[in-house]
């Protein structure tokens, strides 16, 4: 066994010391089994969504919330439940690609969910998307000589975009409904990754499609929507579902679920039992929940850094001192990962110094100090900071107010010079 393998084993052992097979926290998508084990809370929201699936009417559901609040996971959990409980319903998921309209996006999602349908696969092929079936076009020529038979040949199909994606989608839904009489549900995720005015336009253009024969679940943000699109009376959506930050007890329960999903021994899911949050102590577990502000993505990011720090320090328990070190490392890591421009850093520092910034209270002097004349110009930077988990928007409906994420400030380790 060579040295490198030893290092690997040592690293694995450090995690095992914490009674974990591997670090359970992740920012990447997880498989359905893991998702079912770690998904926590949101019972009221799930109930509202599932109620809509108890009737025949096709429904349009818009799930919105801040970045990192768990929209994708919520959507996947809904689809997973539908899959288990309504086996005669077909569900399809896709993250909205850039520069694509909603009808073509839905068409791709549905076609991918129908691998055995040749017409569906042909649609994908014509769009240049790889399929499992190799498709060929048959041609035939009659040979010049009299009396001799025809010969046939094959050539690859040319790649073209669908001219009428909405019509193609409608056709595909009809085909799906033959095999799946309980219905078709199409989930389009990540509308909030696009520019709000682009999303507004996409929605306007997709009104016909959204009123068609499938259930639609979309995730995004409310910022880009106009009232007429949102209201159910003359608008598009039967349900607009906000996802808010999780409360502390739910976040604590979520921590337990995450840890249990990779615990080697002694699984325990009683929140009152300190063993349920090992290798955390109850106080450090609570601190993690507080600092992550009920935002699942921040929770995962901090969790990864905390466990990495713990393994680096070769500890078995995450004490307050270990946690403090970890959170400092996390703060530094978040800042480095964000790669802020000078202007963004100025805004971040201002936010840190002042505690919060809002469109209601900021002064001209403050704006000039930051190099702006209007708050709407600072807003994209604040949202970028939020995306990088360096700021968060407080829940006040009559103002746009941002506060810093309260982590202890980490110091960059100076490089050693000869």
């Amino acid at each position, binding site marked *: 066994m060579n040295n490198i393998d030893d290092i690997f084993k040592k690293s694995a052992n450090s995690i095992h010391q914490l009674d974990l097979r591997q670090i359970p926290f992740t920012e990447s998508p997880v498989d359905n089994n893991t998702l079912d084990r770690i998904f926590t809370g949101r019972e009221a929201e799930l109930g509202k969504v599932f109620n809509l699936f108890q009737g025949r009417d096709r429904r349009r559901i818009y799930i919105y919330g801040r970045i990192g609040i768990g929209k994708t996971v919520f959507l996947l959990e809904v689809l997973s439940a539908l899959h288990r409980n309504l086996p005669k319903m077909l569900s399809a998921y896709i993250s909205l690609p850039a520069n694509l309209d909603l009808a073509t996006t839905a068409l791709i999602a549905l076609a991918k969910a129908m691998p055995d349908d040749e017409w569906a696969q042909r649609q994908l092929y014509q769009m240049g998307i790889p399929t499992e079936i190799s498709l060929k076009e048959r041609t035939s020529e009659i040979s010049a000589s009299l009396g001799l038979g025809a010969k046939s040949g094959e050539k690859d199909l040319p790649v073209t975009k669908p001219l009428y994606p909405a019509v193609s989608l409608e056709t595909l839904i009809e085909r799906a409904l033959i095999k799946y009489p309980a219905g078709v549900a199409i989930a389009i995720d990540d509308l909030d990754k696009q520019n709000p005015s682009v999303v507004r336009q996409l929605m306007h253009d997709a009104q016909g499609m959204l009123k068609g024969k499938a259930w639609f679940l979309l995730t995004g943000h409310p910022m880009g929507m106009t009232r007429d699109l949102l209201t159910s009376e003359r608008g598009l959506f039967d349900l607009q579902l906000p996802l808010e930050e999780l409360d502390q007890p739910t976040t604590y329960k979520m921590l337990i679920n995450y840890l249990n999903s990779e615990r080697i021994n002694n699984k325990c899911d009683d929140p009152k039992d300190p063993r349920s949050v090992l290798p955390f102590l109850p106080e450090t577990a609570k601190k993690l929940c507080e600092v992550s502000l009920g935002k699942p993505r921040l929770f995962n990011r901090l969790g990864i850094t905390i466990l990495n720090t713990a393994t680096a320090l070769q500890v078995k328990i995450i004490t307050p001192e270990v946690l403090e070190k970890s959170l400092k490392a996390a703060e530094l890591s978040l800042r480095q990962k964000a790669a802020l421009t000078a202007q963004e850093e100025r805004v971040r520092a201002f936010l840190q110094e002042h505690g919060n910034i809002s469109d209601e209270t900021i002064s001209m002097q403050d704006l000039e100090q930051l190099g702006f004349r*209007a708050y709407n110009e600072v807003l994209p930077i604040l949202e970028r900071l939020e995306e990088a988990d360096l700021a968060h928007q407080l829940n006040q409906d009559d103002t746009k107010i941002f506060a810093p994420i309260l982590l202890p400030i980490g110091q960059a380790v100076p490089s050693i010079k000869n």
Partner: protein
Amino acid sequence: MGSKGFGGQPEPTEKSRQFILAFKKAMDEDTHQFFCSHLSDLNESLLKDLPLLFCELTKNKKEQYVIAIMFGNFGLSLKQFPLGDRSLNMELGLMALQLVLKVFTRRAFPQDWAKIQNNLGAAYKNYIRGDRADNLEKAIATYELALQIYTREAFSKDWAGTQNNLGIAYIDRIRGDREDNLERAIAAYELALQIYTREAFPKDWAGTQNNLGTAYCKRIRGDRGDNLERAIAAYELALQIYTREAFPEDWAGTQNNLGNAYKDRIRGDRGDNLERAIAAYELALQIYTREAFPKDWAGTQNNLGIAYKDRIRGDRGDNLEKAIFALKLASQIHTREALPEDWAMTQYNLGNVYSDRIQGERADNLEKAIHFFNQAADVFTQKAFPEKWATNQAALAEALMKRAALTNNIQDLVSAIELLQSALIFAVVGSPDFIDTQYRLGKALSRHYEYSHNADDLQQAMQAYEIALEAISPEHYDLKQIWKALPTTQAILGSRLIRDGQWQEGLQLLLNSLTQLKTGDDPLDHANALYQTARGYEVLSDWDNARLFYRDALRLYAHLNDLLGITQSREGLGSVLVSQGYLDKGSVELVQARDNYLQLQKADRAQQVDNIYKAAQRALERQAVEVYA
């Protein structure tokens, strides 16, 4: 020597004779190489001798066809030869083709005759000498002649090719009604596409799609937004065949065109469109290098410069630096001697960028802007280019006004006023330039009033503003020029479009205007645009954004001590807060707005606000009753 003795027929020179015979021998080889090594023989003397040579050589009836074919090849290869005197080469080529028709007559050789007519048409279209308008008329006439033989039924491919060429000629046509010419071009391309299908003739199909895209970009009839969407769709189709690997030059050309369409696009998100334009130009520049395609490279650099000037994303200061960089590259090829009109356009564009430049010393930037506009004025004279002259005048006036604000030099203001008044004499009433020039004149006069205290100045200023405002109407505004309009015009047009129900376009204009005004010299213009944007969002029932922008407008108006602006913003903010159910906060704003309106002696407005305030109070009382019930 050309002639022999007194009264005899003129004869070609021996030199010309030898040259043509040498070409006959070299015809099947590399004609480009041949012309390179006989550059000095391509001269005016040859031009005089060509018809004489043709006459002499075709006297022998057995040889006449061979000679005619030789002259045809000579004409075709020479008209594209890039070295030497291009205009002379074209004229030699044109003459040679005309001579061929003496042998290949319509009666005897209809198909060849039609082919030569088609080639002649292309030659006339590109001909530099003589009157351009005339040349284009000749081009169109010869294409029409070709189409008498090239019918769809008998010669479908040639027919389609000639339709395509006819379309190109109509695009450039100077005579006739411009709108009509463009419609004819589009019709010709559509006819060509009936034969040039993607499956049968992919390259020709792609070429015609590209041309169709250009026609839609220029189209006057129909909805501007629609036309640009069609242009983009046509370019995208062309790019399915014009791939970089297979047809790099055509691919680059189409990318450049696509960039232009996105730069002018009205639909969709303006920020996105400009990013796509920049990306397309950058792709084109991968093939359009300075060494290989200097003219195209320069043209694309110029376009890239304009796109960076208008860019919304990224840091504005940086974007303007990139614009300057690209425009300066363009001006290395767009020299005054070689390409005066392109040179002048690049000077004008540089003037605009320096006028807005954020980095560097302000005074220095404005000096440079004024210098560039003056340079452009040397070519964009009122006689030669009346519209461009007027636009340039107005931009120069703007730069002078900015300098006046910096240095308190009243003479600059006076010069600006004179420039604007003279530009207005030649402006088309109601056109975008007219509107912007009136607006600028109003601004210049009101600034002059601050020095002169002459009531006439103020009155004329108000008049100018009113004329500008009245002329901005969504039905009549030439949207083709919207992105060149002053940001203040964009803001006003934007708010009117929203009022008229064109929400998306209106909002795009408002947001675009803010991009420029936020770093501009006039914070009052910025405050006004913020206010208009807030109102736009309010009409769209986007309360969150309406509130955000009303607060921004209010803050800036307060900073500028503009009481009317403060009052209107408080009214808007109050109204939005009340609509959202924040009755207390909304009422506070409404009360202040009402009292301010009274102070401004606007009793009607005060009354309106008071009505909303009282309704909010009643709602508050009802809420209180419900709570205690």
